[in-house]
């Protein structure tokens, strides 16, 4: 059984308004690393909130590990399984001191003190911020704050973390820190990572990309598959990674180049062989 399963969900913020989510069916496996891509206002943040049970679908049903998010008595268990990191790091830190903030979730779970201590230390270590345990949160950089926010969710030991544009407010180096943390959580601890973004370079890191437009899913597959369909992405007002675009434009000019190249080094290799082949031929 899939970890998260959405069955024909629809959502509107009020009955008079237009639907933000329109008939989505989705299955996300345990331990996967999924990126949800889409331009502004395509409903991707709403979808994230639906998957965590912060919002309830107005149509259809969402099951998190077999638990229905619409069932109020299960809300606590669902939140424990599926944490969420938000866009603005300032608005999700509850306490002024790093370790006190990370302890917030385990405190809410009513865990014994030793267990809270152990979880706080482990979470700090995972995000590489051990030496900041007794620092004031407001003095940290954006990337560090966001790592503390991740640690705060990790301390709950969830099975899945949803990142709702968690890198959008960070500078490039902060963004790198967070993407590295996501990868580590997924590959080393086996946490299911769902990241919502409009940065292509981040989506490339995922194992699976879901492309959204107008409240619907218009593409779902491995990054190489998704990015080889340049026209479809452009129709959803999304740009492809720069190297992919370069190769696409060259191909349009009549050069015989492969599609679905995502990284600059791979592209360089491809071009080198291509140019070399021409010289010899």
């Amino acid at each position: 059984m899939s970890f998260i399963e959405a069955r024909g969900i629809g959502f509107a913020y009020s009955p008079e308004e237009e639907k933000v989510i329109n008939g989505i069916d989705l299955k996300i496996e345990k331990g996967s690393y999924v990126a949800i891509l889409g331009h502004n206002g395509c409903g991707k943040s709403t979808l994230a909130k639906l998957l965590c049970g912060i919002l309830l679908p107005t149509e259809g049903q969402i099951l998190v590990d077999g638990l229905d998010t619409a069932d109020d008595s299960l809300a606590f268990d669902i939140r424990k399984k599926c944490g969420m990191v938000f866009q603005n790091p300032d608005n999700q830190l509850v306490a002024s001191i790093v370790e006190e903030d990370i302890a917030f979730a385990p405190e809410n779970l009513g865990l014994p003190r030793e267990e809270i201590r152990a979880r706080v230390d482990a979470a700090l270590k995972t995000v590489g911020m051990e030496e900041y345990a007794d620092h004031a949160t407001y003095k940290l950089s954006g990337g560090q704050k966001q790592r503390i926010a991740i640690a705060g969710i990790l301390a709950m030991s969830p099975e899945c973390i949803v990142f709702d544009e968690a890198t959008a407010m960070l500078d490039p180096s902060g963004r790198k820190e967070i993407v590295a943390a996501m990868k580590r959580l997924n590959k080393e601890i086996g946490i299911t990572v769902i990241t919502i973004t409009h940065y292509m370079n981040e989506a490339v890191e995922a194992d699976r990309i879901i492309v959204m437009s107008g409240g619907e899913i218009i593409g779902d597959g491995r990054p190489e598959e998704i990015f080889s369909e340049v026209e479809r992405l452009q129709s959803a007002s999304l740009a492809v990674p720069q190297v992919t675009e370069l190769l696409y434009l060259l191909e349009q000019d009549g050069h015989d180049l492969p599609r679905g190249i995502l990284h600059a080094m791979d592209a360089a290799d491809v071009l080198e062989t291509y140019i070399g082949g021409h010289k010899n031929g």
Partner: protein
Amino acid sequence: MLKDVTFGQYYPGKSLLHRTDPRIKLLILIEYLVFVLIASTELAMAATLLFTVFLVSVSGVRFGILIKSVKPLLFVLIFTAIINLFFTSGEGDPLFAWKFIKIYENGIRNAVFMLLRLVSLVLGTSVIVSFTTSPLQLTDAIESLLGPLKRIKVPVHEFAMMMSIALRFIPTLIEETNKIISAQKARCADFESGNVINRLKALIPILIPLFVSAVRRAEELADAMECRCYHGGEGRTKLKVMKAKAGDYIFLLVVTLVTVAIFFLDRITWSEAIGFCRDIFSK
């Protein structure tokens, strides 16, 4: 402009005051406030100042920070001192008289006392509580001290939670205010000229965006807290359980003794004190 506010800021450290149980610190603070306010003789004031110096020195807070915490109050301090200087009438001849301005010996005394009292109040409160206690510890202490009120259905936990979140957001909102001020200045807003009414009006374009963003932040924070399984105070455990050690009680006892001593010193005059000392030595 708002960057220099040191009130409510916590400076992490490992000093005696940092290690003292926050509940004990709150009780100590109450005693401290009492004797700073009652000290009215030279002896009592000297003892109060001595104790303030002691507190400051065991807090391990840097001197520069202390200066910074008094600086914004400079105007208030000077103002109260001047008011006391000129408007205290005393017995006997004035020391200085020019037209309607008369300065009496009592006036100088009052001015100096008021100045010392205010500076002690600011420094003492800062080092006992705000500089050396993290906001969460402080609210935990208040929650614990007010705990008995839960029985008569006072929402103590909610109150403490609100307070700790408010304290947590002070630096964030200050930063935001500065940003809004800069943004409005870039749009030619004028905050400095005009009369009081105009200047107050100029605050509106700062306050409205600030409120709007505060409400938005509150909504997001509520979502984030829910996501982290917050469900009120019931069944909640704590990472840091407050446990008053023997040393904490001794500290409290010492401060209580100091309070009693200052009460006593406040009742006697110099001559009585000298007589008292002479009695002891002659025995």
